[in-house]
């Protein structure tokens, strides 16, 4: 068959990869204990350690956070430094290998395989800046953590979330006039769709919001404002947004645990959302009023 005809475009389903939320979000830092303190205040518990790498798994409810202190071994990836950086996120898909192949065909950059013997090879592509995006299809009966991680003894492996706290999205800082490029990237490769301007979540209304095809996860793209447009700035994943069914109660609970929230004229807690004070350099979290969604059936 003619190759051109063989590769001819066919209409894509709305969720071509069978995306079903976020499996984990990863931080890279050379000071994992400092970040552990921050995560534990936010309600996360250390659950397991990677068998061969300096990597720890934190969990609460449906959320997994990976803390990676392993020196980078691939160019254009985050080198763990004192200031923690969001270095990756993993999307749950129907078939990780198929999703990965499709992404490469569409123009994604692949990450060389890093798995050692008996470890899972989790396919990944380059995302914004030095960050990675993983494709994970094992999250139902058994998980990627069952194989690559050793559970920390005598620890509850599934600690409940504080009052329905769940992943809502990630805020991505981008360069001037780069919104259209990133919308293209996420819509082509993952099937995200931009939401109209009037749809806003939380108290930080800037930028453009993309919704995952499963409807449960959001990316907020923010260009530099005003004169900052003319200064050079690295693009990166800036902060995690958590969904909370009741923001005021959540803020009160987290404040008791030692989390501090911003209370400036422009940015302050309301029942729509809240923003934590930055710590360890630039780590901050956003709360957004949202109910945890039931998973969209894809299988």
């Amino acid at each position, binding site marked *: 068959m003619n190759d*051109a005809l063989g590769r*001819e475009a066919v209409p894509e389903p709305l969720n071509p990869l069978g995306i079903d939320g976020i499996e984990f979000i990863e931080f890279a830092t050379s000071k994992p204990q400092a970040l552990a303190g921050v995560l534990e205040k936010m309600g996360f518990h250390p659950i397991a350690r990677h068998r061969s790498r300096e990597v720890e798994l934190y969990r609460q409810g449906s959320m997994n956070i990976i803390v990676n202190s392993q020196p980078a071994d691939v160019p254009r990836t985050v080198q763990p430094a004192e200031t923690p950086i969001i270095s990756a996120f993993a999307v749950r898909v129907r078939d990780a290998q198929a999703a990965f192949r499709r992404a490469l065909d569409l123009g994604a*950059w692949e990450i060389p395989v890093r798995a050692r013997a008996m470890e899972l090879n989790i396919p990944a592509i380059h995302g914004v*800046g030095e960050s990675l995006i993983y494709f994970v299809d094992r999250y139902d009966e058994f998980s990627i953590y069952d194989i690559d991680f050793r559970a920390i003894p005598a620890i509850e492996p599934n600690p409940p979330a504080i009052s329905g706290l769940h992943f809502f999205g990630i805020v991505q800082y981008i360069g001037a006039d780069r919104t*259209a*490029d990133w919308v293209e*990237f996420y819509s082509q*490769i993952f099937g995200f769709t931009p939401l109209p301007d009037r749809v806003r979540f939380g108290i930080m209304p800037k930028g453009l919001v993309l919704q995952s095809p499963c409807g449960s996860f959001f990316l907020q793209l923010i260009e530099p404002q005003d004169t900052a447009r003319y200064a050079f700035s690295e693009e990166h994943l800036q902060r995690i947004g958590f969904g909370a069914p009741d923001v005021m109660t959540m803020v009160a609970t987290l404040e008791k645990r030692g989390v501090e929230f911003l209370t400036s004229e422009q940015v302050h807690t309301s029942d729509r959302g809240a923003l934590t004070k930055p710590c360890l350099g630039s780590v901050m979290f956003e709360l957004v009023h949202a109910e945890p969604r039931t998973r969209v059936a894809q299988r």
Partner: protein
Amino acid sequence: MIFSDVGMDTASLAGPLDGKLAAVRRAGFSQVMISASDVVGHPGGVAAGVRAVRDSGLAVTGLEALRDFEGCDSRLHAYKVDVAKSMLEVCSELGGRLLLVEASTSSHADTNADAMIRDLHMLAVLAIPMGIRIAFKGVSWSRTVRDFAAAGELVFRADCPNLGLAIDAFDVLAARIPLGDLDAFDPEHIFLVQLSDYMWQKIQSVEEQAATATHFRVFPGEGAHSEDLATFVRKLDAIGYGGNYSFDVYNDDYQQMPPEIVVNRARRAAEWLVETVLRRALPVPNMERLRRTAGE
């Protein structure tokens, strides 16, 4: 167009990269289009080539040129994707934000438009994380994409925000493309305009056109089509094109002349375009250099 919108091509000059960059800077240009072979062929290695460009203080108009990318069969396609990734990485290291891509001229390339569009779209997506724009240009001896109208059709159909058009004035002059064709384009989709002229009145054949394009170009204002070139530049100005211009003057004689002499011809060409053609005020010579020196 103002003077700082015009850049020199390293490919138009003879000698090692460092000498070219110094000559371009001394002539008062603020930007330079980098030929990939100049960086990769640097005697000190690629890293030294990259450093030379970054240290020159010149802005990088873009990197040229990825050729014969679109329409390849599977095996060749995989190979070409590797070439493209390598060029994107060099471009990114240079601080460049544009990669010039010339339409396939290979007789092995597929002429199916859907295949070409898919490949161009893939290339543009590859460039997104690095913030690089893809400027696609027709080549007059290509089987499928001979001019900016044909290139623009593919760019339009591929529909990717960082995929746009490069227009080479030589092709417009040589093929006598009607300038009214430019009206069909959103100027935002034109990422780069390359300017050059040639000496003969007429080109008789495609073979002669290819030979002229690669060996006998001259700077704007020096050739036989100054009036046409002036009309072309005025037309771009009129449709609202506000992007960069570069001088892609491939000339065997210039390859045997000191780069300082050639770059001064380029300087005169830029002055002719800005002052005479567009009647814009020109900054005093070397102002860019003086300003930088003062800031150092």
